[in-house]
């Protein structure tokens, strides 16, 4: 009896993922604990380990397959010398206990002549008027008129029998000023744009940030912080830091944000339909740019952590985030996020809140600027920071007080010792 290797759930909410790569081939001997495949999920690439010793008898889901449902059989393993029975194969292909998807992603090609994207194990969309699973029902005349006018026939609703798109529908769309299908226009020799199918991460970024901007009314507060004292303190601290630990400005910003969340607890929560919830710890996410997107690993209880701890944790999280090997639990949750684009010379920007958090702080570059101090022109190292806050939970004064506390901690780092 073959052993079924199932698509693992990498987080409690995961329903499907991408089988990125097989590290074994059919016929390979594996031992328990061997890494056999890589699964790509929302934000990271995870390794799948063999749980038993045996032979990989049959790979059921080929690599680079998207939308593989959790618990779908991805491979069959047999004990050495055992061969695969028909019953094994039958039960394996019958096995996927897929949760019925609400709807399949609409991946209709922009042009009706473009080849349909290769069918993977993606669930079929329920038959819809005029289109199902990529086939568009349209009369030849409707197709030709749509093509002649460069309009995307898949965007038209058919009124013919069973939703068939007929000439009148295309003419109606034309009269309503249907948008010509996307094509390189005006540039001589312009080629078709390069198409990149979404990674799981790209989908999640798109979905979450769209939700954020659509549901959380953002407002923005900007403040200038003088960081000369902070830079001096950092220098001193690093002289005494444990071996291998280097405290960065960013680590100090995280600590300062933790201080501010404790100082202004009205900021430290999230809004939900029935009421707001508040935390008593400062769990802070840091945005880390990775290939093909970004992840936001969490530093827990920043208010209790010393800077050396924070430095060690952030260094570890950042490097593993870039390697795509974070455990899903390491980027789940968090009360507040810090996004720093200072290293790119960005003076200031406003960031999109990472839902359901109450706010995100956008950090600009620290740079020497002329400032006026006691009526005199002086040079100081300045850093602009912009708080984006969710007005459903945070009012302007709360956000302003939080930013005051943050500025206080940055400009007088010693108070974080209190």
């Amino acid at each position, binding site marked *: 009896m073959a052993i079924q290797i199932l698509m693992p759930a990498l987080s409690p909410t995961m329903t499907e993922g991408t089988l990125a790569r097989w590290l074994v081939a059919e016929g390979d001997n594996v031992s328990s604990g061997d890494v056999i495949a890589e699964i790509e999920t929302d934000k990271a690439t995870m390794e799948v380990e063999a749980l038993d010793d045996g032979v990989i008898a049959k790979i059921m889901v080929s690599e680079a397959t998207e939308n593989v449902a959790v618990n779908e059989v991805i491979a069959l393993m047999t004990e050495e010398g055992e061969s695969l029975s028909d019953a094994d194969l039958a039960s394996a292909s019958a096995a996927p206990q897929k949760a019925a998807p609400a709807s399949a992603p609409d991946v209709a090609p922009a042009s009706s002549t473009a080849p349909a994207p290769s069918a993977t194990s993606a669930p079929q969309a329920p038959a819809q008027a005029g289109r199902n699973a990529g086939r568009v029902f349209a*009369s*030849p005349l409707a197709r030709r008129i749509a093509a002649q006018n460069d309009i995307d026939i898949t965007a038209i609703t058919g009124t013919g029998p069973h939703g068939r798109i*007929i000439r*009148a529908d295309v003419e109606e769309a034309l009269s309503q000023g249907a948008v010509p299908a996307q094509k390189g226009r005006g540039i001589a020799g312009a080629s078709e744009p390069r198409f990149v199918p979404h990674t799981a991460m790209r989908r999640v970024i798109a979905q979450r940030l769209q939700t954020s901007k659509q549901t959380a009314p953002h407002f923005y507060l900007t403040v200038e912080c003088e960081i000369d004292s902070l830079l001096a303190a950092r220098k001193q601290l690093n002289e005494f830091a444990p071996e291998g630990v280097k405290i960065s400005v960013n680590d100090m910003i995280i600590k300062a944000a933790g201080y501010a969340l404790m100082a202004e607890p009205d900021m430290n929560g999230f809004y939900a339909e029935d009421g707001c919830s508040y935390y008593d710890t400062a769990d802070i996410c840091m945005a880390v740019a990775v290939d093909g997107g970004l992840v936001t690993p969490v530093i827990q209880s920043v208010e209790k952590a010393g800077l050396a701890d924070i430095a060690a944790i952030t260094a570890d999280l950042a490097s593993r985030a870039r390697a795509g090997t974070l455990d899903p639990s390491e980027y789940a949750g968090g009360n507040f996020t810090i996004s720093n684009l200072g290293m790119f010379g960005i003076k200031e920007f406003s960031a999109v809140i990472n839902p359901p958090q109450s706010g995100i702080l956008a950090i600009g570059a620290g740079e020497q600027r002329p400032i006026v101090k006691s009526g005199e022109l002086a040079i100081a190292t300045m850093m602009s920071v912009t708080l984006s806050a969710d007005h459903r939970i945070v009012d302007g004064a709360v956000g302003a007080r939080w930013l005051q506390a943050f500025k206080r901690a940055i400009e007088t780092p010693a108070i974080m010792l209190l």
Partner: protein
Amino acid sequence: MANTQNFDVIVIGGGPGGYVAAIRAAQLGLSACVVEREHLGGICLNWGCIPTKALLRAAELRHNLDHLEEYGIEVTGDISVNIDKVVKRSRKVASRLSAGVAHLLKKNKVHVVSGTASIAGKQAGKWAVAVAGDTSETLGAKHVIIATGARARQLPKLESNGTSILSYKEAMVPKSIPKSLLVVGSGAIGIEFASFYRDMGVEVTVVEALDRILNAEDEEVSAAAHKAFEKRGMKIHVSASLKSLTETKSGVDAAVEIKGKQQTISVEKVIMAVGIVGNTEGLGLESTKVKIDRGHIETDSLMRTAEAGIYAIGDVTGAPWLAHKASHEGIICIEAIAGLKDVHGFRAEQVPGCTYCRPQIASVGLTEAQAKAQKYDVKVGRFPFIGNGKAIALGDDEGFIKTVFDAKTGALLGAHMIGPEVTELIQGYAIAQTLETTETELMHTIFPHPTLSEAMHEAVLDAYGRAIHF
């Protein structure tokens, strides 16, 4: 109105529009009633399409018998026509079908009332329809469909008298075969009678006020028909207006002005076929908002009149006066009433027209001239039956098929045919139009060999310079 019988739909008139609408209504779960004053099946079935086809079949046989030798068959003895028996058969065909309609209505649980109906007013959102027949009663319905058809147009001082000056109805039941006949009007009705009587050996003259016969057809088809009829021995005068008809001892003297010249045509009988006019009178429409324009009820493309809840279908709504147009309108009307999705309005250019003369004529869509008038850039294809193997084998290779395409989109705008069995062929192009095919799909369709339909394929190919056999 305590004992008023109520229906969802009352259809006034049991012709091919009315009875089809009622059956469709029943199919959709609506309660339906048909009020018919004379006979189910209407003019079409009793005094039009069907009995004339029975007559024309006899004429065709007669024609074929005259040409048996061409096929190597020798017949000795006389061939004679017993017109009584020909007419009797025609009536038998009609009555058989009329009984069939009664059965269909019964099967579909459509209530049939005999009598004359008129709209008596509206009460509580329902129309009251008064029926005068063997018994008088009032029926009620939310929707009333007027499907009362039409009758022959009578010209002042040129009215038919039933003996020597005939309308279509009398022309259909001749007691004898006249020696000579004048047909006034060259639409489908006039031409079918001309063709029938000519095959029965009558000297036939056709006068047409317009400058060509079969004016609704493509000009090339009109010209070919004109030539074919003259070849058969008909006399045809176009741009000819009938001034007077005078009864004489031997028949009728017709004073006709032909291209400005006065001429008298003496014949035994005259058939008046100068169009038809809708039966809009006595329906109680005066007290409604229903608009009547030159004898025809105005409707939108879903057959709704200007009065909510009153609809009109078929001949009473105007040209083309065709049974299948009436039936189609009836279906659209009922489906819209029933609230079916995707009901598309009536489009006149999708109604095929057939004339069962010899050679037969059939068409659908726009003529070349109509297409050009509508600013289409056209591609025209033609294919003659002399290039079609089956037609030659049949010994019937007269005529041609013509197609008109929109050069820009490849839409089949129209198709026009004259020749053997073309009335049975036209549906192919009608389907193509309904499915919105372009020339490409028609070219890729395999037409079986040897059939007359291959000429349809070739006529498509020819429009794009690709005809194989000509």
